[in-house]
């Protein structure tokens, strides 16, 4: 600006006109260049967006497959477990049904026999009734003789009555005995029937459970949206829970590390360092890693986890060997840690004693030491923890498996969403590039608006060329008469 005020405005206008003229002359190639650059950018962005979209779709498909596969595996495992339990139930309980049936039959037969035996036998009619009958038909005048006969009959009747009562009582006693014998059979029968009923109810419950699992498994197998939603929710929950458990386990491992790091320096020394870390610390870390590895192998060989499908697929003998080896390693390491915890206590006491002696507080420390209370409790606690913590760390394999499986699906979905978001942003960039190109072209034309205006005036002042219409076509045909002769007139 200062230059123009010095040289004068005419120079500025001259320069501006020259630039405008140059821009006008270079309009077509400049337009092509601008269009080419921005179209190129647009196409590149579009290509990237399409590619990212495809990757996102592919990733979603892959995540879906993995999720369904994991769900299928879990479903199969659950069904297998249920069927295994049902098989065991059938072998254990239903296998004994012929025997049970035989028992029930025997009980029923016993009850029937005893019941039949306990039925009331009708007592025979007394013999004197016929005598009374014939006596009543006799026409006797002698009352004395009658009364004597009647007395005899009475006596006979009394005797018979007594006999009858005696027989009746004896029969009843026998019947009661028989009925008492029925009671245990009855109870056993009732128990057998109740037991069978309970088992059948259990079977029904299990079969309902299997039905539920089966329905879910079928949905997973079909890959329905409902199953996918369920599996996604399940994966997220599993991820959160397993992360929490793993965090707790890491806390345990950290505590375990501090329990054995100091005594390890007594074994491997603490002066050497690898990458800034003491060798003794690394040795302690390696021991903890070995414990976790042994735990993983133990759980793998027990088929609780399936981190290594190779181990699960091994035959029982090999698996048993791995199981025993892992258990031995684990127990040995746990015992070693317990001993190290003991050693740690000794070293820590020695260090504390040294520090107190250096600071001139020997008497105070030794007074506490002699009490014996402060010394043995932490020592025992250290040793117990040294033994238990390695065994507890073996369980880390279960949440680890869940973490890996659920993490794969959850983070896979998250990554797919991220890629999709990137694709959208890049598509926005593509549109922005295209619009920017258009705006730039308009600005270019705006700068050379003057020459363009002149050009339009000049174009309008000249006669218009005949448009390429039917009329123009016919004019050409008349002029050349191509349709008839093919030769120009």
């Amino acid at each position, binding site marked *: 600006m200062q230059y123009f005020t010095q040289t004068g405005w005419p120079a500025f206008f001259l320069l501006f006109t020259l630039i405008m003229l140059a821009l006008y002359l270079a309009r077509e190639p400049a337009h092509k260049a601008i269009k080419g650059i921005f179209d190129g950018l647009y196409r590149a962005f579009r290509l990237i967006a399409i590619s990212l979209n495809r990757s996102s779709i592919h990733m979603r498909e892959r995540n879906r497959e993995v999720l369904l596969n994991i769900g299928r595996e879990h479903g199969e495992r659950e069904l297998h477990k249920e069927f295994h339990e049902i098989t065991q139930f059938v072998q254990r309980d239903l296998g004994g049904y012929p025997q049970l049936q035989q028992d029930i039959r025997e009980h029923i037969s016993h009850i029937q026999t005893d019941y039949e035996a306990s039925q009331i036998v009708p007592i025979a009619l007394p013999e004197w009734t016929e005598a009374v009958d014939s006596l009543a038909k006799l026409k006797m005048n002698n009352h004395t003789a009658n009364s004597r006969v009647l007395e005899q009959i009475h006596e006979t009747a009394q005797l018979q009555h007594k006999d009858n009562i005696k027989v009746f009582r004896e029969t009843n006693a026998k019947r009661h005995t028989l009925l008492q014998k029925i009671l245990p059979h009855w109870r056993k029968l009732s128990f057998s029937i109740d037991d069978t009923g309970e088992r059948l109810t259990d079977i029904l419950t299990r079969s309902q459970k299997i039905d539920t699992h089966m329905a879910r498994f079928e949905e997973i197998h079909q890959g329905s949206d409902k199953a996918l939603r369920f599996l996604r929710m399940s994966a997220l929950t599993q991820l959160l829970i397993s992360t929490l458990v793993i965090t707790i386990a890491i806390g345990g491992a950290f505590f375990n590390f501090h329990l054995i790091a100091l005594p390890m320096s007594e074994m491997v*020394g603490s002066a050497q360092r690898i990458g800034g870390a003491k060798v003794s610390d690394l040795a302690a870390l390696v021991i903890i890693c070995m414990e976790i590895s042994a735990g993983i192998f133990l759980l793998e060989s027990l088929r609780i986890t399936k981190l290594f499908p190779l181990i699960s697929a091994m035959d029982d003998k090999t698996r048993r060997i791995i199981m025993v080896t892992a258990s031995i390693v684990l127990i040995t390491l746990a015992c070693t840690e317990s001993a190290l915890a003991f050693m740690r206590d000794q070293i820590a006491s020695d260090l504390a004693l040294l520090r107190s002696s250096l600071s001139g507080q020997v008497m105070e420390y030794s007074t506490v030491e002699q009490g014996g209370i402060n010394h043995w409790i932490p020592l025992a606690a250290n040793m117990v923890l040294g033994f238990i913590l390695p065994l507890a760390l073996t369980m880390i394999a279960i949440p680890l498996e869940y973490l890996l499986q659920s993490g794969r699906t959850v983070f896979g979905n998250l990554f797919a969403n991220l890629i999709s978001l990137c694709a959208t942003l890049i598509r926005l960039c593509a549109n922005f590039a295209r619009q920017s190109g258009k705006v730039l072209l308009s600005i270019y034309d705006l700068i050379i608006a003057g020459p363009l205006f002149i050009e339009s005036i000049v174009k309008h002042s000249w006669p218009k060329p005949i448009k390429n219409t039917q009329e123009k076509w016919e004019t050409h045909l008349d002029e050349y008469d191509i349709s008839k002769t093919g030769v120009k007139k």
Partner: protein
Amino acid sequence: MKPLNCIYLLLINIILLASCSTDNTRGHTRGYYLLLDTSGTYTEELNKAKQVINYILATLEPGDSFAVARIDSASFSEKDIITKVVLDARPSVSVAQKRAFASTINAFVSSVKSSPHTDISGGLLQGIEFLNEAKVNHRNILIYSDLQEDLPKGYIRDVNMKLDGFTVKALNVTKLRADNQNPRSYMERVASWQSKIITGGGNWELINDLEKPDALL
């Protein structure tokens, strides 16, 4: 990646790390060379020096080096090293070494006799030699003195000290009676030592408040 492959990679990493461990053996070790002034009335200050020594001993770790030497009339000599130690890698052994060290210092402090002259520069040169031989990573020379040098006749100490990578800490620099009359002499004395150390390429620190032991390390 499969878990088995992860374990293989971990094992390979451990082997690689183990193979390069020998180079870093003394990478984090510290070395301390403490000069104790035994001239004149400064011997009265040695009981305080014992506390400093005990504090340093308590904070040393396996692999560290520590030596205590006296400043007498001619300090550039191995004979002036009262006791020295390179702490063993095993904690139990290093604790025993510390105990022995502390007991030697106790014996020295109870039986020390004052020397007629003060050769601080000679002690400093001896300290540089000791720490260079010790091949420690962090080299520290502690001068427990009033920094008043008084060389016997015929002793030359105007040599250039190579103190690259050294930290020299002057502890308990007491004020002399003359310093009280003219503090400038005290300041000049301290400044002269500071310039000598910095010219040699070392770091200089002055610690008079021994109640803050963290400053020692």
